[in-house]
């Protein structure tokens, strides 16, 4: 407890606490200032943060560059969509099914992909992501390319997901749970083995750890949380489509994790906020410079990513001061 209080007094701690405070108060703030739109942006930031935290578990702690993480958005989302289209609207059924389906998919592709290394791993996860994408767009009964309008999951008497503020609170609570899990995960024996294998696989193998099985387990856990984010994303827009699992979304998730700081607990949070804020700020900012330029914000955003990759190792987290150890 003492350590925690001390770490809160550093710039990083203050920044994180301030960020979480803004998150916690967002519905009240947007209500007070009449900015309903910002609440939906906020909801999406929270959901993407969950996905980014889940990617960080394997990418950050495991060093496994998975380029197919958006598939879990799709599997989680489509599980909700398909069940609701067939009249099974209960969240008590939908959510576990969606998360189990994501975990199962993660187990299958993990078992195949983790046999490969480096670029091959990156490419095979990318290809599996595309496989799910094409399967989704081939689901003609569920909208095909156009996607599917769904009714939000029902938790009778407990919470109404159609209410924007309650849905936001729920997402935030789930983000906190995910972060809590990740913080335990990172310092557990399991997490330490995973991090050890990231820095030296051969050594961990020589020490007798079944590295493959540890990685596979991490992949499954990460996929399950990714599926949860997919469930929430489907409920946010009451809509699922193959576009939510295109490879560009997987790329966005990697960008977010790297932008925030790889293998840092709150990194994905910083990254998601920065990613969405950049989009929301660059557009009006460029319009201010010259009318009509805002539309082309990615001309600026793209080179920014190049510069971040080249000169800002450690992402936003490293801007908040050195880490000890």
């Amino acid at each position, binding site marked *: 407890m003492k350590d925690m209080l001390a770490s809160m007094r550093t710039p990083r701690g203050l920044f994180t606490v301030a960020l979480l405070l803004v998150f916690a108060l967002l519905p009240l703030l947007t209500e007070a200032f009449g900015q309903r739109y910002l609440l939906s942006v906020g909801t999406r930031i929270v959901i993407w943060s969950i996905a980014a935290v889940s990617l960080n578990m394997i990418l950050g702690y495991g060093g496994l560059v998975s380029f197919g993480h958006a598939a879990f958005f799709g599997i989680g989302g489509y599980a909700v969509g398909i069940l609701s289209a067939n009249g099974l609207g209960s969240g008590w059924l939908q959510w576990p099914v969606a998360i189990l389906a994501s975990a199962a998919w993660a187990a299958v592709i993990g078992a195949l992909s983790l046999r490969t290394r480096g670029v091959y791993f990156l*490419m095979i996860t990318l290809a599996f992501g595309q496989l799910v994408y094409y399967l989704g767009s081939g689901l003609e009964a569920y909208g095909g390319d156009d996607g599917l309008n769904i009714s939000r999951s029902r938790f009778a008497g407990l919470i109404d997901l159609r209410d924007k503020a309650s849905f936001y609170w729920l997402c935030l609570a789930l983000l906190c749970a995910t972060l809590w899990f990740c913080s335990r995960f990172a310092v557990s024996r399991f997490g330490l083995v995973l991090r050890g294998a990231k820095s030296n696989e051969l050594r961990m193998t020589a020490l007798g750890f079944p590295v493959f099985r540890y990685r596979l387990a991490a992949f499954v856990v990460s996929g399950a949380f990714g599926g949860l984010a997919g469930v929430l994303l489907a409920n946010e827009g009451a809509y699922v489509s193959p576009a939510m699992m295109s490879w560009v979304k997987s790329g966005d998730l990697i960008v977010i994790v790297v932008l925030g700081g790889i293998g840092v607990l709150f990194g994905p949070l910083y990254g998601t906020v920065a990613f969405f804020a950049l989009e929301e700020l660059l557009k009006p900012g460029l319009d201010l410079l010259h009318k009509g330029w805002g539309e082309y914000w990615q001309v600026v955003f793209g080179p920014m990513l190049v510069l971040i990759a080249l000169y800002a190792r450690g992402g936003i987290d490293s801007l908040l001061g050195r880490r000890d150890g």
Partner: protein
Amino acid sequence: MDYLLIQMLNGLQLGLLMFLLAAGLTLTFGIMDLVNLAHGSLYMMGAYIAWTLIAWTDSFVLGALLALPATFALGVVVEAVVMRRLYARDHLDQVLATFGLILFFNELVRMIWGPAGKSIAVPAFLSHTVEILPGVPYPAYRFALIVVGVIVAVLLAWLVARTRLGMLIRAGASNRRMIAALGVNIELLFSLVFGLGAVFAGLAGLMAAPISSVKIGMGDDILILAFVIIVIGGIGSIKGAFVAAMIVGQIDIVGRAFLPDLLKTFMAPAAASSAAPAISQVLVYILMAGVLVWRPTGLFGQRS
């Protein structure tokens, strides 16, 4: 039977096009150890530059010939400004930076050429059909694509297997620190190889333009297919890229052509014809997964 032949030729033509794209990618991958997601952007830029030059010169051949040095120059500039700084970095940095380049190029194209797609007309002297077998007509342009594809593939094979540059490329792919230590000007070599890859990508883009269309993001989806091809073939192997491109071309086209009929035997016709393209795409990825499970470094990849 004729139908099968025509579909197989279409598959061959797609395969050759994919090979052009994959050849540059596998070289930069194998030699510079660079994950270049922006390779598809070079494909797109090739098509757009060709569109402009063809409109300007009013001749397909002249425009296309001028577009090749232009894409080479673009490749060399991209290499000098961005890629050169990425060789020593890990793959994650490369993914991030080249992902940024994709966003940049897509938006740049939208700024310069506008959001609407462009079309390049099939040149007049190739707009007829040729009889590949008595009584079996085939579009002359597609036939020309096959011819050009084969010529370029042979040229590339000759370049890699028989010339000094090719020798350095092969040496670089197997041990680049060693050839640097032997006094080869590695910066020049990398620059050349990247430019060469850009030319092949641009050529593929401009040749595909008359049969598909020139649009923003046209390189993004085909890039994934090119990655699949080089992974199946084994990274750094030109031969592997060629074999894999041929297989993928056949699966994609023949799958598209024959799956609907196959599916109709047990599915509703409408559902069958809409599911078939998706399934033939999926087949390609299943093939890749199968190859990687069997050989984790691809068909012709070096065992590490």
